[in-house]
């Protein structure tokens, strides 16, 4: 029931990207009867197509168009052309994601107020709060089938979780469980129950994990109101003399430039491509790029304070068996500056296969110190650290005019350096993670550096005042009423939690707002 809309149909809402934000928004609008054309740079892959092999899957799904890096983060040295690990496909990064679905804590909506001034940090309160988001979170949890919310049971713990849980309890941690996961944990629901195959990062072949690729997108298409054009790479957003956006130019699957008219444009290309498109759409009227009167487009890039701890034991663990990330310790997520930093962090189970472990355990390392670590792979347990990082104006995405992609468009340069608060938090988290594993008999531990960014946030941030950010409380750009941002780039601050549940909740809320404003004739 595809709904092919005419290129000259200027009544449609154009959504750029079909990931967590764009895919959700597309379905929500289509359900409300709004006509939507979703343009997706990648191709369409479904559970049958997913490949349970780390590098092959990466080759199938990852965004590998050129990007450049700078700053003192280690990724700029070890993976200079791959600042982020994100997906180019229908479904966006929800094909790769692990499914951890956590709400922000109340105080995290108000980081500037709660933390006070932090030198070098460009902190700001969100213009919305926990009470306002509560019903939208509930809708998102129900849509995604998040475990331990509603009446949905938790997932069973795998081997990696059991080691993690025993270590956490030995340290006296209280909030330890198999997580709130957008993964089917019982027979009640539309999706197959998790079969514990592992490879959650490579696309769930059972469809047990929520991904817009096989939930939101086909549900929207079934209404007849949504047309998804795959392999359609948007190059520019167009506007008229009145300063309203009028459509987009995109390269179709054959590399031909097309123009789709639009009543409203919603940008959801993830936190590198969304600001890139605004900047690449500069015109004589908007010489610094669209929606950039504040100069904040591309700034305040956040990637979460991350790291991993792996540990080897004298007996087998086989951490790769079962759900990749179903395990969490939440005790350190609290606000408690006595630890030497503001913000908090979560500890979550994580496992990589041998191919990725070799690439990411200690990038660049060689010799026996490294290879004996891998020799212990069968006896290894692993966890990921995810905490709130500080927004900094100089951590930013800019256009690199010297490097062009396959369409001749300038690529992004991603500049990032840790804030001292990020470093203090990481040091604390390594210490705690190591202590957990040592409490259950680890013979060797590995405080592993951050991977290329999986959580990319903040480059078009939400602000009460137009001078402080790019979008208002609805994700509508301060400067252009019919241009919206619908992905993680609208995050004002990152909080300690994995971002996708919040991206989805914001998209559901935004769809409600757009549909009602359209009905009122306001946009």
């Amino acid at each position: 029931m595809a709904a092919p809309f005419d290129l000259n149909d200027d009544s449609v809402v154009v959504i750029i990207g079909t990931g967590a934000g764009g895919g959700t928004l597309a379905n929500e609008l289509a359900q409300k009867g709004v006509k939507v054309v979703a343009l997706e740079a990648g191709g369409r892959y479904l559970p049958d197509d997913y490949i349970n092999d780390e590098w092959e899957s990466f080759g199938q799904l990852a965004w590998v168009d050129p990007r450049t890096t700078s700053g003192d983060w280690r990724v700029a040295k070890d993976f200079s052309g791959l600042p982020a690990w994100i997906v180019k496909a229908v479904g966006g990064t929800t094909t790769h994601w692990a499914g951890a679905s956590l709400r922000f804590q109340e105080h995290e909506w108000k980081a500037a107020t709660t933390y006070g001034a932090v030198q070098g940090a460009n902190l700001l309160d969100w213009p919305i709060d926990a009470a306002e988001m509560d019903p939208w979170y509930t809708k998102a949890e129900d849509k995604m089938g998040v475990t331990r919310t509603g009446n949905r049971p938790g997932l069973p713990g795998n081997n990696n979780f059991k080691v993690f849980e025993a270590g956490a309890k030995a340290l006296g941690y209280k909030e330890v469980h198999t997580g709130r996961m957008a993964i089917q944990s019982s027979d009640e629901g539309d999706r197959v129950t998790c079969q514990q195959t592992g490879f959650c990062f490579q696309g769930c072949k059972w469809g047990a994990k929520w991904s817009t690729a096989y939930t939101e997108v086909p549900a929207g298409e079934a209404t007849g109101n949504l047309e998804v054009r795959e392999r359609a790479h948007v190059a520019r957003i167009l506007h008229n003399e009145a300063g309203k956006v009028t459509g987009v130019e995109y390269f179709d699957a054959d590399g031909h430039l097309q123009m789709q008219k639009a009543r409203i444009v919603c940008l959801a290309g993830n936190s590198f491509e969304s600001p890139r498109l605004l900047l690449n759409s500069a015109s004589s009227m908007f010489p610094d790029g669209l929606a950039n009167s504040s100069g904040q487009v591309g700034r305040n890039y956040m990637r979460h304070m991350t790291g991993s701890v792996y540990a080897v034991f004298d007996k087998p663990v086989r951490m790769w068996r079962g759900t990749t990330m179903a395990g969490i310790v939440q005790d350190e997520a609290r606000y408690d500056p006595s630890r030497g930093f503001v913000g908090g962090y979560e500890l979550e189970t994580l496992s990589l296969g041998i191919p990725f472990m070799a690439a990411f355990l200690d990038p660049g390392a060689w010799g026996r110190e490294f290879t004996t670590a891998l020799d212990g792979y069968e006896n290894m347990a692993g966890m990921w650290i995810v905490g709130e990082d500080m927004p900094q104006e100089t951590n930013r995405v800019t256009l690199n005019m010297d490097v062009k992609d396959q369409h001749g468009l300038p690529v992004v340069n991603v500049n990032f350096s840790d804030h001292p608060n990020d470093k203090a938090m990481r040091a604390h988290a390594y210490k705690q993670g190591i202590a957990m594993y040592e409490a259950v008999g680890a013979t060797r531990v590995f405080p592993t550096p951050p991977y290329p960014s999986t959580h990319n946030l903040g480059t078009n941030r939400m602000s009460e005042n137009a001078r402080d950010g790019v979008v208002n409380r609805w994700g509508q750009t301060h400067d252009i009423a019919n241009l919206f941002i619908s992905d993680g780039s609208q995050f004002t601050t990152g909080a300690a939690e994995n971002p996708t549940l919040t991206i989805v909740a914001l998209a559901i809320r935004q769809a409600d707002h757009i549909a009602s404003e359209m009905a009122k004739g306001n946009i």
Partner: protein
Amino acid sequence: MERTERPRGLTRRQLLSRATAAGTAFVVGAGFVAAPNAVWAYETTHLDARAFATLVQMARDIYPHDRIPDENYVAAVKGYDTADAASAITAGLAALDAAAQGKGFGSYLDAGWERDRVDILRGMEESAFFQQIRGGLVTGLYNQKAVWPIFGYEGESFSKGGYIDRGFDDINWL
């Protein structure tokens, strides 16, 4: 690489008699490298056989896993045995031998202890040649399905129905 019991018509005894020691591999005449026990053999097309044996040893010294046989290191580096790559690789290996000579060894392969060869490699760690070989091995070696069982890694499980009934929570020592 060809995995053969009797490489290229040679009997194992003939092979050993013609071989000159080159690290753990043996160079068997021009353009032919084989394992001393003849479980694998590789005929080079563009690289000199001794250079190739040096490259295999270098690969093992960068990522030494005593339980991974040479054939997997051969598979990891044979991509350099091409018309395009050979001259740069030959130059890199010549620099490696020169570095070995600077430390008093006849060649890289003549350094019998791993610690001596690693010492030579440390001295050229920042070179583009070393980084090319090391970087290529990360996928060239560890992405070979044949080595995964050596680490205990089981690879995909979808075709077997996942681990839901096959031990996802079978840990028994906690």
